[in-house]
């Protein structure tokens, strides 16, 4: 579906694409918003969104502005993206037919963010605590320094960037295969997704992650229920870094998925789903 969402960079509203997991939004159900990582789009969540949509949630897996099927220009920094989330939630509330999102946590949404999306969820929770009932941070650390070679390749739309991200982003499962979806390739799928994105998308996203320095400060301000979900083989946001961040959040739990890299929602889709289910049902 397409949502008309106010922009944080101009006065105009922009059309934002969001997958809803095959169900329409309902004001009777809690809103669950999925935020993808740098250079990616909503399709990375297909093994979680459809389940939640059929199990009691209004689901929005968005394409950030300038990504995937969404209009608009790329947001340049994590803080800007975080400031845009309330506009997104407003638009979702409007389209679901009431002036508030109801459900078990009335008028509040939950955010599930991966990598860049996790930083956005973290920053948003620190800035707009009144909007959120919980956050789930997948593949997260307070800072996400990006290797200069990768930054440069991504800025230049060099295919090397796609190979580096898919290589570093996957653990053993991703590299060898035997993926959860029969016959699908995680490395090939990741490379195709990144290379099909509009020019500059990955570069801007990685630069935003690299520049973000407010993680620990933001963590200190988060008071909603938080899950930090980590992969034991994650090279991009090592589990130790996720634990350090979680230690700064008042109400945070951690969950480590074994034999898993940075792309846990694809590499270990069921374990990711179970961890999200457990967390969301407890909040």
């Amino acid at each position: 579906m397409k949502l008309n969402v106010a922009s944080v960079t101009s006065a105009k509203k922009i059309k934002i694409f969001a997958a809803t997991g095959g169900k329409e939004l309902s004001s009777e159900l809690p809103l669950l918003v999925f935020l993808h990582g740098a250079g990616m789009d909503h399709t990375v969540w297909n093994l979680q969104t459809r389940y939640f949509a059929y199990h009691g949630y209004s689901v929005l897996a968005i394409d950030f502005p300038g990504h995937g099927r969404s209009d608009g220009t790329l947001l340049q920094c994590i803080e800007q993206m975080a400031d845009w989330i309330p506009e997104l939630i407003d638009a979702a509330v409007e389209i679901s037919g009431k002036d508030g999102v109801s459900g078990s946590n009335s008028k509040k949404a939950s955010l599930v963010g991966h990598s860049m999306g996790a930083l956005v969820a973290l920053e948003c929770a620190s800035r707009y605590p009144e909007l959120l009932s919980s956050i789930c941070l997948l593949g997260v650390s307070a800072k996400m320094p990006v290797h200069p070679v990768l930054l440069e390749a991504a800025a230049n739309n060099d295919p090397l960037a796609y190979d580096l991200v898919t290589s570093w982003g996957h653990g053993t499962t991703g590299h060898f295969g035997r993926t959860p979806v029969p016959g699908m390739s995680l490395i090939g799928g990741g490379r195709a997704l990144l290379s099909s994105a509009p020019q500059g998308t990955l570069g801007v996203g990685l630069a935003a992650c690299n520049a973000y320095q407010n993680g620990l400060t933001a963590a200190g301000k988060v008071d909603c229920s938080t899950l930090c979900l980590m992969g034991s083989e994650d090279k991009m946001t090592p589990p130790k870094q996720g634990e350090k961040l979680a230690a700064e959040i008042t109400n945070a739990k951690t969950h480590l998925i074994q034999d898993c890299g940075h792309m846990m929602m694809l590499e270990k889709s069921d374990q990711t789903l179970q961890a999200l289910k457990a967390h969301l049902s407890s909040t």
Partner: protein
Amino acid sequence: MDPKLFKFNTLSLHGGQRPDAETGARAVPIYQTTSYVFKDSDHAAALFNLEQAGHIYSRISNPTVAVLEERISALEGGTGAVATASGQSALFSAIMTLMGQGNHIVSSASLYGGSVNLFQHTLPRFGIETTFVNPRKPEEFRKAIRPETRLVFGEIIGNPGLEILDVSAVAKIAHEAGLPLLIDATFNTPYLCRALELGADLVSHSVTKWMGGHGVALGGVVVEGGRFDWESDGKFPTLTEPYAGYHGINFFEEFGPQAFSMRMRSEAMRDFGPAMSPQNAFYLLQGLETLPLRMDRHISNTKILLEFLQSSDEVAWVTHPDLPDHPDHELASRILPKGAGSIVAFGVKSGSSGGGREAGAAFINSVQLASHLANVGDAKTLVIHPASTTHAQMDSETMKQAGLTEDMIRLSVGLEDVNDLIDDFKQALRKAAKATGATK
């Protein structure tokens, strides 16, 4: 900086598989089962609604077959693959995934005879027409495209004429018309050429041939490139509009770069049922493990046999894209730098009124080491006379379009000691010449 992604040789052995977590089995286990126990009713419902990944029934997916699919997808550089019972069912399933009644295909005329039959005689009964064009003239593809065209199709190394398709040029033409290019890559395998890297959007194989290499198991596969925009102009509603067969799912929205594979598995495998057996998948995986080694030998034996055939007095003509006088030699050198496959076409001289057809038959009846049968890509050397067998259903005009001559012998070069092959061919050529009066 090296991204440290597994290379081709490693993927041939390991792609899609890790040692079995429960038993430690190093080889891929054969999951000889029709069905899979659900954890509970919620899990069952989630699998049926594509909410969670997993196996339901082996007509749709099977763990052994899935290893083969992942391995081939990795070797081709694809986003995913769906294996089928044969190369022909792979092609049919791909077409049925993309289009229906009233649609149209533009295809190279130089194809396996079974594919020609499918396009020319069978698909019209389902309301799908095909226009065949000269693979050496990419502009003919453009001219043949109609508003209802939904697919451009070809083989990189034409069968049996050995014309080379300029994949990049044809892909550009297809994309300018908003169409995907499907390449049957059976004759080249991803070891010799990765069509997706040249711009193709889908790749199909008869894995029965070089990919398996042993001639003991049938199989096919379709690999998705993941970069085609199925949505841009509304030509592919099977992928971009809600599908009532799966609770209104929109495959492209939901699965992005794997939309085609997911639709093919969810519909073609479920409804038509061309499933590959796990036993066959196991055999084919054994073959894939040695694909790079075998292809190197296929190519080196081919080069030596080409020299022999060219120098033989009893041979009227010989063609292969690696020969400098082949019309597509330059293109073949560019897109198939390791070698243009191990199929050779040649004619045997005849001194009788029966012409080359009679001489060819005499040659085929005289070989002892090479096997006369209807297959290619076996580890063993094979010979056949296409005009009377694989392409016998073609009329003379279609034969001409396909680059086929009455005297043509199709040779699939195997892995034997090449000197033994030369000895066999020498004695068979002598007998053919004697039988037809070409020599005394």
